């Protein structure tokens, strides 16, 4: 009897305690739940639906006809080639410029704070607006032609954006992309550089590193994680390059995203979904490639 009484007296607090402990361990998941539900409903589910669109007819039959039709389309190879050309030219240049700009800001020259503000202005400009800015420069009666004419360098206006001048059209798109998207890479680079403890840079100086050796052997390796993030971000976004191209080239330069847009405009959502699938696959492939190629070894992680 007495032992029973003791047990029953002790047990309620015991269960309370275990409930509290269980609640505590579940708390992170409970707190994550709302955003997880949000992402599922508004991102994951629409994405899955969109991808299903590319391989299923409205009647519910699984098919590859949309993909086949996309591949046979006259613009498909052009769109693929243009997208890759823009990525291959613009992304490396963005990194070269971003790293150079980041190092310049980090060099603590006079007014380097001012540079930072100027160089981040494009971040606040929408894609389409950026495209229109450069359209005003490159169009037949744009700033570039009028400057060239008034200075007498080129008496006759040149059609920079004509589909007949593919080289200059591509150049214009790349320049606009550089102007628009270098700053985000630079911001990431600057953030990475600022995280390098000063001791490492001083150690490099003491042990005889010249300016270039310091950049090459200490600063760049130490911002590798930041560069990796920026590279993945930029490449994925470059696969979706759209508004700048539309503004500057209209239909003269098809890219993957603009083709998806055009299919959608033709009320062919299945065709649009097929292009979206292609963009997704390329994005996943390059992300995987970057993660492998730029992997920070386990040993280096715990600094």
């Amino acid at each position, binding site marked *: 009897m007495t032992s029973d009484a003791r047990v029953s007296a002790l047990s309620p607090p015991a269960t309370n305690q275990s409930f509290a402990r269980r609640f505590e361990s579940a708390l992170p998941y409970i707190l994550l739940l709302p955003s997880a539900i949000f992402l599922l409903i508004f991102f994951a589910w629409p994405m899955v639906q969109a991808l299903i669109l590319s391989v299923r007819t409205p009647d519910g039959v699984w098919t590859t006809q949309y993909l086949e039709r996309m591949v046979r389309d006259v613009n498909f190879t052009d769109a693929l080639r243009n997208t890759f050309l823009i990525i291959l030219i613009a992304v490396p240049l963005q990194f070269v410029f971003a790293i150079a700009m980041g190092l310049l800001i980090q060099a603590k020259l006079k007014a380097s704070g001012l540079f930072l503000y100027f160089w981040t202005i494009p971040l606040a400009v929408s894609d389409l607006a950026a495209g229109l800015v450069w359209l005003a420069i490159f169009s037949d009666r744009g700033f570039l032609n009028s400057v060239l004419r008034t200075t007498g360098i080129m008496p006759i206006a040149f059609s920079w954006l004509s589909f007949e001048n593919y080289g200059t059209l591509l150049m214009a798109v790349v320049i606009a992309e550089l102007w628009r998207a270098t700053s985000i890479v630079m911001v990431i680079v600057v953030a990475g550089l600022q995280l390098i*403890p000063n*001791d*490492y840079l*001083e*150690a*490099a*100086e*003491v*042990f*005889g*590193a*010249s300016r270039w*050796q310091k950049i090459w*052997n*200490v600063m760049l*390796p*130490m911002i*590798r994680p930041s560069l990796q993030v920026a590279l993945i971000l930029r490449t994925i976004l470059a696969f979706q390059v759209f508004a700048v191209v539309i503004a500057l080239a209209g239909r003269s330069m098809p890219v993957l995203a603009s083709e998806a847009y055009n299919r959608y405009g033709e009320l062919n959502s299945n065709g649009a979904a097929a292009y979206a699938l292609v963009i997704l696959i390329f994005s996943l492939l390059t992300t995987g490639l970057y993660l492998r190629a730029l992997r920070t*070894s386990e*040993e*280096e*992680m*715990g*600094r």
Partner: protein
Amino acid sequence: MGEIRIEGVWKYFNKGKVAALKDISLTVEDREFMVLLGPSGCGKTTLLRCIAGLEYPERGRIFIGGRDVTDAPPRSRGIAMVFQSYAVFPHLNVFENIAFGLRMQKRPNEEVTRRVNQAAGLMRIEKFLERYPAQLSGGQRQRVAVARGLVMEPQVLLMDEPLSNLDALLRLQARAELKRLLQEVETTTVYVTHDQIEALSMGDRIAVMEIGEIVQVDVPKEVYENPATLFVGGFIGTPPMNFMRGTVKSVNGASAITIGDQVIHAALPAHFQTGQDLLMGIRAENIEASTQSSPDAVPARVLVVEPLGSHLLLTAQVGDTPIKVQTRIDFPVVPDQTIYLKLESNQVRWFDAETGVRFESGEKMSVV
């Protein structure tokens, strides 16, 4: 060869508002182990950074090996440095960390391998050459940082509190090891620390710094026994030197010091004048405590008794000045007891009560 000569160096911070170094002059002999000792903010690290070329003084010259390096960048000064944080590069393994300086000089591969292995052997880290810093303990990282300096065979090795990030037990071990090592390599070394025990145990000489100035440069024994100022005596030693304020009196025609209402007969130098205020300094281990009164002993009331294993540390009150006294561990004493203190007369030091500067013991200053 590796001599460092610092001449009248001034360094300002905050656009000239704060003088971190005030007219510092110091010569470190070739192959000497010089310790810069002082509390935080005294300018010892700034002085080290000026020698390294990481800071440039506003006035004064710095010579290394007879060459004026005042305006030279760190890499052309023939120095190597061990940083307080070690600054071992996380993206390089131990081998490449040690090799860093040689790689910057584009030395041939075989020379790099030979010298890195030699330095790693000296620091006993040969087994870790392939590892990355994140896989090393604090003590091992510290060795990598030292090896990276030694491998350069520098004219001058600079060390900025290299042991301060280690835990107490490891620090004791690393201290002895570092001392052995630096005796072996015989490089001119400037070693910054705030730990007076480190300074006493390692340095050939110690430069004690206080708010931007060097107050005393001498061998550890001298700095300990004959502190140049009140500050040095109070900073060095565990416990620090005892100071008692007294006044010079003439008692029955003989000179004496009164501390509170205590009269201590002392043979004072002739230039001390009656009525002059003095500070009498004596270390805890130079006071002999007894339970028996005697004519040459000063009575004191015991406040605290601290057994420290090998000895007792007493806090006792003479007049109204608390002082520390070291006795045998079996000395029979309880708090509030009155004990009698005999001061070892040749260990008593006299300081100017105004300036805190020690009077040179040109003449005998015995306590009778």
